[in-house]
């Protein structure tokens, strides 16, 4: 009797292991059956990723820095940020982290584009239908809170080790903010303005592209920014499943207690994060020029 209270009446060890094995086995069967198709499905993505990474690594470094500086200037229109970016990349090169940085840059860029391409339409869907919101929100909650190692397991079981599973892992972790903030941004659009659009006979498309998305842009941009930051923070974990880049030396540094190596590569990740952050934020702000001007 007392046993019952102190010891939780759990499933027996045998039942449990049977259950786990059952799940594992069925997933394995699934991955054996569909693994190749899935891989084929993701193949174009892999090809693009490899191509982009090779492009960045093979191109002459001065050209790459020039292009990055130009993009930074286009995004931020600030000499300070552009200058800082150039210096950061020069330092990265001097400390022999150029190739890893390019690999990470390629990975983050592709992951961000993918997240935007999937996340913004999802956010729009959530803003349009409350049902979609009530279904997607808990999924996003799980995606954000589940330890990333846990979903690495099925991803690796399905697709093995390599760039694509790494990319997927990064995207799973990084996509929630863009979805959430797109949804939020659209829902926060002034009701008066929406009513006016409605009163002038705007169709759903006209309202979405003419009013809601333009007015939700500050929030959408905050989402893009968050997505990039989260993608960068996944770099080290992704390197555990074979993604090249700055995460690999960090991982090596952890297992061998190389302080300097870890620090240098860590700081390179930080530099990338700061550059992405400043450029995307100032670009977002510039799109909102009408908000800045002297309101009474």
């Amino acid at each position, binding site marked *: 009797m007392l046993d019952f209270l102190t010891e939780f009446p759990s499933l027996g060890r045998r039942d449990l292991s049977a259950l786990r094995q059952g799940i594992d086995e069925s997933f394995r069967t699934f991955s054996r059956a569909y693994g190749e198709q899935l891989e084929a499905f993701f193949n174009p993505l892999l090809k693009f990723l490899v191509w982009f990474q090779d492009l960045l690594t093979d191109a002459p470094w001065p050209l790459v820095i020039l292009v990055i500086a130009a993009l930074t200037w286009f995004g931020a229109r600030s000499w300070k940020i552009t200058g800082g970016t150039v210096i950061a990349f020069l330092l990265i090169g001097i400390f022999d982290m150029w190739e890893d940085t390019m690999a990470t840059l390629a990975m983050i860029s592709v992951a961000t584009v993918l997240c935007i391409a999937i996340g913004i339409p999802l956010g729009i869907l959530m803003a349009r239908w409350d049902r979609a919101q009530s279904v997607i929100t808990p999924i996003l909650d799980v995606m954000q809170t589940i330890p990333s190692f846990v979903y690495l397991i099925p991803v690796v079981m399905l697709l093995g080790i390599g760039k694509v599973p790494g990319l997927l892992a990064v995207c799973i972790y990084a996509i929630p903010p863009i979805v959430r903030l797109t949804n939020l941004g659209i829902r926060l659009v*002034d009701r*008066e*303005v929406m*009513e*006016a*659009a*409605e*009163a*002038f*006979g*705007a*169709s759903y498309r*006209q309202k979405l592209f*003419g*009013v809601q998305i*333009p*007015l939700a842009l500050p929030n959408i941009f905050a989402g893009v920014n968050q997505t990039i930051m989260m993608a960068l923070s996944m770099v080290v974990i992704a390197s555990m499943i074979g993604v090249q880049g700055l995460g690999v030396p960090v991982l090596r540094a952890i297992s061998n207690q190389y302080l300097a190596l870890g620090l240098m590569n860590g700081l390179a990740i930080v530099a990338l994060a700061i550059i992405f952050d400043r450029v995307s934020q100032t670009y977002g702000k510039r799109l*909102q020029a*009408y*908000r800045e*001007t*002297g*309101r*009474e």
Partner: protein
Amino acid sequence: MTEEPKVRIKELYKIFGDVPQEALGHVRQGMTKSELLERHGHVLGLRDINLDIPGRKIQVIMGLSGSGKSTLIRHLNRLIEPTSGEIWVDGEDVLAMGDKALRHLRRFKMSMVFQKFGLLPHRTVQENVEYGLDIQGVDGTEAAERAAKWIARVGLAGFEGHYPGQLSGGMQQRVGLARALATDAEILLMDEAFSALDPLIRTDMQTILLELQEELHKTIIFITHDLDEALRIGDRIAILRDGEIIQASDPQEILMNPADGYITDFIKDVNRAKVVRMRSIMGPPAPAQGAPVAPGDTIEEALQKLHAAPDGCCPVMAGGDLRGTVGIDSAIQALKAPAAASAHYS
């Protein structure tokens, strides 16, 4: 009226709540607004509204906040769906319209001006005025030309490239007005359009509206809580209280013969010298020695002539025809507000 009304509202009811149809039954049996709220948790928005709105005139709908006036105007283009009743525009049943027909109505037939302007903050003045035309599908150059014309017409030339956030309230509402006019809709819905503006600016805007109306002859449905505004611009006024129309008539009729104590109370602070017109107080044609006055003259405008007349009487002339005679005594009499019939209206 022999002429078909432009807009006809018939037996319109609106009840806000979870089961409005059930509540509708109670309201039809005579339950009051407060009883309905207390016993059934439903809010009575509009009760049995019947209103014929003539074309090419300014119909004012007046009421205090919570009287249902903004709810009523939103039924005309179905921004709000009624619980029961009929709405006809140009002989077409608005409630029978599908999405497409309704969008067509909103795009081409009715445009709207809002209390808080409802401008698109990310578009310039020019682009805001073009908005209705964009929605209609008018091509870029034509839309730009038409918008520029209306921007100039409301006195905003030179501000085309500004964003709404850079303009004062009065200027923003001019943009709102230009945007509504640019679509060439015959019906203009104005929801407390000038209420958010300073008194001086408000008078300015009323003047602009009246000037435009003289030329355009739109059917304007104008919501306001301000009686002076209603009397200044309204060709007809409907007074709304607790979701019911209490009196709908000519403004002069409201001034001279208020339907009940509520309206009497409402009009008691009006400066009658500025709003009561000769046609409301004139008697049948009779000999008069004073200078002629017009039927539309206010007491204030006519008082000097009346005073100067040796017999205190002036002929009321319209385009060379004698319409009646007005005496200084009746003018002075009319300055006094009708006594409150009873202070105890419900």
